[in-house]
């Protein structure tokens, strides 16, 4: 069964503080997409944290990043 895949842009409506969460991307792709999303949103000082990385049944890795 394939993993759900999405990118969440989560922001504080009062301060604009933004987090980015990526789900369902293979490791290498996740890093690359996270970099691009961070650059486009302008959150250049974002910290990227991998909160999960698991082998899926289809051989793809699931990762999650928060910026």
């Amino acid at each position: 069964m394939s993993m759900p895949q999405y990118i969440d842009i989560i922001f504080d409506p009062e301060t604009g503080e933004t987090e980015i969460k990526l789900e369902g991307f293979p490791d290498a792709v996740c890093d690359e997409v996270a970099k691009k999303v961070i650059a486009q949103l302008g959150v250049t000082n974002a910290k990227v944290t991998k909160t999960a990385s698991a082998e899926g049944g289809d051989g793809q890795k699931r990762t999650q990043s928060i910026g």
Partner: protein
Amino acid sequence: MSHMVKGKTSFTEENKDLLVEALKQAYTGCEVRLNVQAMISGRPICDIVVKNERGNDVGFRLKADGTYECLSYNPGYGNDQDRTNSALKPVYDPYNRAVAKKMTKTNPALAGWIVSKTTDIEVKGTKKKRIRLSPGAGGSGGWI
């Protein structure tokens, strides 16, 4: 004493057009002008100015790092940070949505993805807003 307030933003020069559109949505009925004087203390020339007929202007000036600083007015009471937050609060949602849509058009890995409606969520007891990008019905986009 009344004074001008400067605040950092994450709005970038690269997304200037999106910021202008977001400001038009956020400040309905106000004119958004480029390279004019903002009617706030100090009368600074700004790259982008929201001309507010019913109050003080809000200005945006490009910094060397490629982001805009927000210039607004504090009438002499209240916290400066609150003034900046208040000026920017209506802009975050339309700006972030516009950037998300741009991502789906300019990033091959996100080709065909859709941007869902903004939803209210709670993270560790704090109210936040979420914009979700996900693969459209036609497929999941391609890997980079």
